């Protein structure tokens, strides 16, 4: 047996791991944590690393503790958790649709969430938590519509992607209409939200996205293995004991829920869901969705983008601008690579 796989056995239990995947994921998490500490220590009021650690442990002075825990920690935590959620969401959807472009930001889920948020913000005059609720509802409704439109003898992957792109285009047009018809102040606020940002995160947002991850983790672990089998095609999956249609729906709902909560908390952040799973599987060189590695990569990407947006560039840019710019570069590279290898994405 080669070293690509390692088996851990305890009594009658056994776990099968890929050492390379474990190493890559651990390094990504460590890198994300390191950048997070940098983000906690830098700002208008610099805090030395030692003080950061003491603040987190609750043994620093009140002032420093307030800055680190109350002002900076929520932003840093939301960046990591939203990144992880988007990574997972993208990994599931790309695997279900067997297409790197089948990620939530491409097939209209993020746009649906944005529309939901905008409707609440501009038409109903809501703000804060109600915008998040709007985004959540928008995302779920959009998915239901896409799923039902694509459903004929089962939800076929290509139909899901094409239907998603179609619906998403209509929703973008509707979003533009909403903004154009809004008052200047509302339009500016809407535009800021649409970029996607973790700037004004509070502990409430941390609880929302953290709670979603905790609740969805058990079904994710349970159905993650079936995701591997679904990639063999429905007939083979059923033949090996997977209830394909149900399993696909459960996985899709987990993915949609994560994308929805992430968008509700941080606005429609571009490209993390698309890029994180692809980068993760290139680094791990493992087949399949690589959900764990994608989550680690998502957390790293978003934390790093937040750091670049705040510290590297001359102005304090929202994280969505950075991810969009990096994502554009990445997508170009991905497409060029696939063409060189003579493969087609769609």
């Amino acid at each position, binding site marked *: 047996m*080669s070293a690509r796989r390692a088996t851990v056995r305890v009594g009658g239990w*056994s776990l099968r791991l890929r050492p390379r995947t474990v190493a890559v994921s651990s390094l990504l998490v460590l890198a994300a944590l390191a950048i997070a500490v940098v983000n906690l220590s830098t700002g208008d009021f610099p805090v030395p690393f030692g003080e950061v650690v003491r603040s987190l442990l609750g043994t620093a002075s009140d002032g420093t503790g307030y800055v680190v825990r109350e002002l900076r920690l929520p932003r840093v935590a939301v960046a990591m958790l939203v990144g992880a959620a988007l990574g997972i969401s993208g990994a599931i959807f790309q695997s279900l649709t067997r297409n790197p472009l089948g990620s939530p930001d491409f097939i209209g889920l993020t746009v649906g969430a944005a529309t939901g948020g905008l409707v609440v913000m501009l038409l109903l005059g809501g703000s804060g938590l109600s915008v998040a609720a709007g985004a959540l509802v928008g995302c779920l409704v959009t998915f239901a519509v896409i799923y039902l439109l694509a459903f004929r003898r089962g939800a076929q992957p290509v139909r899901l992607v094409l239907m998603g792109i179609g619906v998403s285009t209509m929703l973008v047009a509707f979003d533009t209409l909403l903004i154009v018809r809004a008052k200047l102040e509302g339009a500016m606020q809407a535009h800021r939200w649409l970029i996607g940002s973790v700037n004004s995160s509070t502990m409430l947002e941390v609880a929302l996205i953290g709670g979603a991850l905790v609740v969805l983790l058990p079904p994710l672990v349970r159905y993650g293995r079936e995701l591997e*089998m679904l990639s063999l095609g429905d007939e083979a999956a*059923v*033949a090996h004991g997977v*209830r394909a249609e149900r399993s696909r729906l459960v996985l899709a709902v987990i993915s949609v829920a994560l994308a929805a909560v992430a968008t509700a908390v941080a606005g429609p952040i571009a490209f993390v869901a698309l890029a994180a799973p692809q980068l993760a599987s290139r680094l791990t060189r493992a087949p399949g969705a690589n959900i764990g590695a994608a989550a680690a990569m998502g957390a790293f990407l978003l934390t790093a983008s937040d750091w670049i947006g705040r510290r590297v560039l001359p102005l304090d840019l929202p994280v969505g601008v950075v991810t969009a710019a990096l994502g554009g570069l990445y997508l170009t590279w991905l497409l060029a690579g696939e063409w060189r290898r003579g493969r087609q994405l769609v």
Partner: protein
Amino acid sequence: MDNRLGARGLTLAYDGSPVVDDLHLDIADGSFTVIVGPNACGKSTLLKALARVLKPRSGSVVLDGAEIASYPTREVARRLGLLPQSPLVPPGIVVEDLVARGRFAHQRLLRQWSTEDARAVSDAMRLTKVTDLADRYVDELSGGQRQRVWLAMVLAQQTSIMLLDEPTTFLDLAHQIDVLDICAELHEGGRTIVAVLHDLNQASRYATNLVVMRGGVVVAQGPPSDVMTAELVNDVFGVPCLVIPDPATGTPLVVPVDRSRRAQGVLLPQ
């Protein structure tokens, strides 16, 4: 029990009119059953229903005395395996990992790789002669190698009944024989094999039981030497032919009649 698997009044349809109509069939245990018939006669559809991949419109498939739909799907997967006509190769997967996925029905969340799993996978790879390919990427293999890998995956499932949907289509002659020989070996090892094939001569050679379908019903069934007659081939495929003993095996050999003679209504050169 003589027939663990069978169809009772099976009617199958996709959207419109039935593809298979009120079909009864018993698969004898330990048989090498080959289903033949013209394109669109419902043979692959029947195989899918036997593997509970396709839900019947009416009637039922019976496995071990109970309706197949009444079992948990994982339980069925431990008794009966299916090699679909065109399974998808997950990108970037190597042979050994693909074969290992054949163990899914036997695994649990906290029992992901037992010693039986390891043994079943290495046995399956040895039987199908893919052990040397273990670290190769599946999407870089030739069609013949790939088909052996898929067979290994179904084999790793360790089911006593194996259903194979056109396992030799798209393979050259050498690889067709390769795959059929492996099937024959598995059959000799005690497994029940049900395969859909196109080549009537290969079907006659390898099958112990031949099932001939046309228009969604079984028109003949039995040992190839009884079933495969010139009359039946003309009837079912509309091809005038001679059926002679295969010089190599003595099984029926179907020889279609030459085009110019067919026009004259004469079968043999005079």
